[in-house]
C-alpha cells in the first residue's frame, strides 16, 4: 500500500539548467571562459570560490569599467591609488624635505647666536655670551634632531617602496579573484533586468581609461610632490567673480529697498500693529491674569495632567525672571503663526483647486523649507531692517510651507464621491468647501497648524539674531560668551514654551478628532 502511493522524489529527475547561451549573450566576448567560471562560482555553496580573471588582474579598474562594474571600478582605483601614491613618494617624493629645511633654518639661527655670543664676549659681557651660547647649543640639538628625523624619513622611502609594491601585488591578486564573483552577480541581476549593463564596451572602457589616467596623474602630483602646482590644490579662480556678483546683487537690493520703501514699511507697520495687540494681551496684562488664563486653557483643552505641567513650566519661567521675555517670544510666535494660518489656509485651498498654481507653488515651498533659515534672513534685513517685524517675516517664510502643504493635502484627500454627492444635491462651491471639504480636511489642517507653530517657534529663536529679542537673545548671548548655565536656563524656558504649546494644541486636536 505504502509503496504504491509513495512520494515521487522530484529532485531525482532534475535536468541541469544550461546557462551557456545566456552567459555568452551577456559577456559578449570570451563567452566560453565566463560560462565556465560562472558555473564554478554558482556551484560553490557560499558563493565564493577560487577563480582568477587575468584581464581584471592586469587592467584592474579598466576591466571593471569596460564590463560595466562601476562600483568595483571605484574600489579598485581607490585602492590602487593609495599604493601608487606610496610608490610615488618612495620613488621621487622628497621625503624628509621639510625636516631638512627646518634643520637648515636651525643651522642659520645657530650661527647667528654664535656670532652674537662672540660679539658679547668681545665686549666683555661674559654672562650674556654664556646665555647666547646656551641658546645656540639648544638650537644645535634641535638641528641635529631635525636632520636625524629627515634622514629617517628619507630612509623610509625604501620601506615605503617595498610596502607599496607588496600592496599593489596583493591588490592585483584581489582584483583577479573578486572579478568573476562580482561579474557573476551582475549576470544574475541582468537575467531579471536587461537594463543592467552587459558585454564588453570599448567606448566605456576608454572613458574609464581617461578618467583613470587623469585621476592618477593629478592625485600623484598632488600628494607626492613637495610643492604641487596651485591649479591642482585650489580652484584656479579666486573670489573675483564672487565679489563682483555680490556687489551687483547688493546694488539691486539697495535700489529695490529704496524704491519700494513705502511697501516694506507698510508691511512692517501692519505686522507691528498686530504684534502690539498681542503684546498688550500677553505682556501688558497683569501676569497673574495671563498665567491663570493659560493654565485654565490648558486644562480645558488637554486635561489636568497638561495643566499641571503647564503650571510647573510657567512657575519655572516666572521664578527665573523670564516672564516678560517669554511672553514677548510667545507674542512674536503668536503673531507669526496667526499670519501663517491666515495666509496659508487660503493659499492651500487655492493650490488644492488649481493644479497649475500648485505646480508653480511647490518648488517655491520646497525652496522655503530647504534653504537654511539664515539665508533668507539676509534679504529680509536688507528690505525690512532689524527688529521684531522682520523677525516675524522670517518666521513666516519658515512656517508657511507646512500649513499650505497640509491644507492642500487634506483637501485633496477628501473622497471624490462625497464631493460629488454634495454637488449632486446642488451645493455651491462655497458650500461644498465649508460643509464638506474643510470639515473632512480638518485633521490634516490641524496637523499643519501644529507644525507651523513649532516651525515658527524654532525660527523665532533664530530671529534673535536680527534683534527680535525674546528668549532666543539670551541663548545667543550665552552662546557667544559660553555661559553654559544661563544658556541652558533660557533654553529650557524655550523648551517649556514649545512643549506647552504642542501639548495644548494636540489636546485640542484630539478633541476635534473625537468630536468629528
Amino acid at each position, binding site marked *: 500500500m505504502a509503496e504504491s502511493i509513495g512520494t515521487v522524489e522530484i529532485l531525482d529527475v532534475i535536468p541541469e539548467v544550461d546557462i551557456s547561451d545566456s552567459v555568452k549573450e551577456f559577456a559578449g566576448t570570451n563567452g566560453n571562459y565566463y560560462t565556465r567560471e560562472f558555473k564554478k562560482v554558482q556551484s560553490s555553496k557560499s558563493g565564493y570560490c577560487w577563480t582568477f580573471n587575468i584581464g581584471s588582474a592586469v587592467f584592474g579598474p579598466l576591466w571593471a569599467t569596460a564590463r560595466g562594474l562601476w562600483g568595483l571600478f571605484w574600489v579598485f582605483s581607490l585602492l590602487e591609488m593609495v599604493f601608487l601614491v606610496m610608490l610615488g613618494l618612495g620613488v621621487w617624493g622628497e621625503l624628509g624635505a621639510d625636516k631638512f629645511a627646518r634643520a637648515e633654518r636651525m643651522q642659520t639661527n645657530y650661527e647667528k647666536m654664535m656670532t652674537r655670543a662672540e660679539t658679547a664676549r668681545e665686549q666683555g659681557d661674559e654672562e650674556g655670551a654664556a646665555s647666547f651660547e646656551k641658546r645656540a647649543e639648544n638650537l644645535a640639538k634641535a638641528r641635529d634632531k631635525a636632520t636625524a628625523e629627515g634622514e629617517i624619513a628619507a630612509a623610509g622611502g625604501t620601506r615605503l617602496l617595498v610596502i607599496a609594491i607588496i600592496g599593489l601585488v596583493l591588490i592585483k591578486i584581489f582584483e583577479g579573484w573578486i572579478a568573476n564573483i562580482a561579474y557573476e552577480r551582475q549576470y544574475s541581476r541582468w537575467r531579471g*533586468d536587461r537594463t543592467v549593463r552587459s558585454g564588453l564596451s570599448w567606448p566605456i572602457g576608454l572613458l574609464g581609461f581617461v*578618467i583613470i589616467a*587623469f*585621476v592618477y596623474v*593629478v*592625485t600623484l602630483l*598632488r600628494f607626492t610632490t613637495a610643492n604641487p602646482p596651485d591649479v*591642482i*590644490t*585650489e*580652484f584656479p*579662480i*579666486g*573670489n*573675483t*567673480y*564672487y565679489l563682483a*556678483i*555680490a556687489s551687483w*546683487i*547688493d546694488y539691486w537690493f539697495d535700489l529695490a529697498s529704496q524704491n519700494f520703501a513705502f511697501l516694506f514699511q507698510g508691511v512692517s507697520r501692519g505686522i507691528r500693529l498686530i504684534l502690539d495687540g498681542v503684546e498688550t*494681551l500677553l505682556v*501688558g496684562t*497683569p*501676569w*497673574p*491674569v495671563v498665567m*491663570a*488664563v493659560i493654565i*485654565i486653557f490648558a486644562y480645558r483643552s488637554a486635561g489636568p495632567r497638561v495643566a499641571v505641567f503647564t503650571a510647573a513650566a510657567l512657575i519655572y519661567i516666572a521664578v*527665573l*525672571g523670564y516672564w*516678560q521675555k517669554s511672553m514677548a517670544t510667545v507674542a512674536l510666535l503668536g503673531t507669526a503663526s496667526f499670519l501663517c494660518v491666515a495666509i496659508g489656509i487660503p493659499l492651500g485651498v487655492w493650490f488644492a483647486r488649481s493644479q497649475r498654481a500648485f505646480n508653480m507653488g511647490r518648488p517655491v515651498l520646497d525652496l522655503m523649507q*530647504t*534653504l*537654511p533659515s*539664515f*539665508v533668507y534672513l539676509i*534679504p529680509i*534685513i*536688507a528690505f525690512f531692517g532689524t527688529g521684531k517685524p522682520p523677525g516675524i517675516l522670517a518666521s513666516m517664510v519658515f512656517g508657511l510651507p507646512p500649513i499650505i502643504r497640509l491644507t492642500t493635502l487634506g483637501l485633496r484627500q477628501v473622497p471624490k464621491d462625497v464631493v460629488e454627492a454634495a454637488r449632486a444635491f446642488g451645493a455651491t462651491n462655497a458650500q461644498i468647501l465649508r460643509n464638506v471639504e474643510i470639515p473632512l480636511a480638518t485633521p490634516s489642517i490641524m496637523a499643519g497648524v501644529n507644525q507651523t507653530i*513649532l516651525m515658527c*517657534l*524654532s525660527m523665532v529663536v*533664530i530671529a534673535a*539674531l536680527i534683534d527680535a529679542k525674546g528668549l*532666543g537673545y539670551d*541663548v545667543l548671548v550665552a*552662546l557667544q560668551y*559660553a*555661559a*553654559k*548655565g544661563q*544658556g*541652558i*536656563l533660557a533654553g*529650557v524656558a*524655550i523648551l517649556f514654551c*514649545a512643549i506647552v504649546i*504642542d501639548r495644548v494644541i494636540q489636546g485640542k486636536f484630539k478633541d476635534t478628532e473625537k468630536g468629528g
Partner: protein
Amino acid sequence: MAENSQPDVTKDIPKIDLSDSIREFSGQNSDYYVDTLSQIQATGENLNLWNKAALLCGPAWCAARGLWNLFWLFTIAELVALVQLGKGIWGDLGASKMAEAEQLTKRAHDLRLEAGVAGVTGDESAESSAEIAMNLEKAAELAIQQAQAAASTWWLYLIAGIVLYVVLRYVLGKFANRLYELQYSAWRLNKKIASGFSMQRLTIALVILVILVPLTLYRFTVSSPVEWLVDVPVDNAYYTNSANALEGWFDRTAEAGKGVFDGITAGAQSVLDAMELLLVDAPWPVVAVFLVVIAWRVASIRVAIFTAASLCYIGFLGLWEASMVSIVLVGAAAFFCILIGIPLGIWFSRSEKAYAVARPVLDLMQTIPPFVYLIPIIAFFGTGRVPGILATIIFAMPPVIRLTALGLRQVPSTVVEAAVAFGATKWRILVGVELPLATPAIMTGVNQTILMSLSMVVIASLIGAKGLGQEVLTALQYVAKGQGILAGLAILFCAMMLDRIVQGRFQRQEDQ
C-alpha cells in the same frame, strides 16, 4: 395631472417633538428654551428673540450654560471696553505727557543754571546753553498743552467704553439663543458636551471675573501700577544661583566624562578626516570628476549635468573649499544618522515598548529649536566641527528612525510569515525580506535627513564649524546681502546635488 402622479412627500410629515430633549438639555428655565429653540429651528431666521439672562449677566451666563469659548471671547472684549471706561473715569490720561514736560522743565532749569555759571566765567557756551534751555522750555510747554488736551478727552474714552460695552451686551443678548441652539444640536450627537445650567460653572466664571477684571482695570488705567503686577516679583538671586549651579555641574560632568566625550570626538573626527581627505585634500579636478561620474552612474545623465553645473557655480564663485567642507560636514552627519538611525528604527519596529518610550524623545528632538541643545553640546564637546556634527545629528536623525520603523511595520505580514514558514532565521528575514521591502520608506528618511542636515550647516557654524555656513553667518553680521545670498545658493545646490544622487539611486531600484 403632474401633482396627482407625484404626491409630495414633504406634505403630511409628522412634526418631531423635541421639547423633551430640549428640556433635558437646558435644565433650568426649560420652558423658555423649548419655546425659543424650537422657534429657531422652525424658522431658521434670526428672530427677535432676546435672551434677557444673557443680556444681563453677559459672560457669566455663557459660562453657566457651558459656552466656554463665548465666555472667553466676551470677557476679553468687555475688559477692553471696561479699560476704556476706567481710563475715562479715573485714569490720569495726560500723565505720560505731564511727566515728559516735567523732565524737560528740569533739564531746562539745569541748563539755565549752567548758562548762568558760564556767563559769570565768560564762557562762550553760555549762549548756546541758554538757547537749548529755551527750546526745551518750549517743548515742555507743548507737552503740558498736549497733556491738558489728553486729559480733556476723558469723555471720549468714557463714551467709547460705554458704547462698546452696550454693543457687546446687545450682540450677546441677540445671538445667545442661536448659539445655544448650535450647542444643543452638537449635544444631541455628543452627550459629553456641557448642558444645562450649572452652579459650579457659574462659580468658576465668577471667580475668574472677580480676579481678572479689577486686576486688569488697575493695570491699564493707573499710570504707574505697582511693580509686582507688571513683572513677576522674584529675586534675581534665583536666576544667578541656578545659572552658577548649572555651570558648575556642567564643568564637573565635562571633567568627569572627559574620556567618553573625547572618545566620541575622536571617533567622529576620524570619519571626518577620512572624508576630508577624499573631498577637500584631494585635487579639485579629481573630486569634480568623481562627483559627476557618480551622479551619472548612480542616477542619470540629467543629474550628472545638474551636478556639473552646480560644481561650476561653486567653483567660479570661489566657494569650492567652503562647499566641500560643508559637504563633508553633511556627509559625516548623514553617515552617523544612518549608522545609528537604521538599527534604532529596526529595534523600534520590533519592540512596541521601546517605541512608546522613544517616540516622545524623537518628537522633542524635532520640536526643540536647535539653539537649545547647542549649549550642552558646547559644554561637553567644546567648539569646532565635531560638536557641529553632533548638533546636526540630533536635528536630522529622527526621520531615518521614524521612517525605518514605519517601513518595517508596513512590510506585509504575509510575506514575513511565508519566510518563517520556509524556515528562515530572523536575521535572514530582516536582511532578505524586510529591509528590501522597507527600502522606499528608509530612502525617504535618508533623503529627509540629508536635507535637514544641510539646513543645519549655518547653525553648526555658530559653534565653530567652518564651510559655507560661516560665509552666510559673516554675511549676516555685516549685512553683505550679495555674498550671503550667493553662499546660501551654494548651500542649496549642495543639498540638491546630494539629494538627487541619493534619490536617483533609489528611483533606479524602484524601476527594476
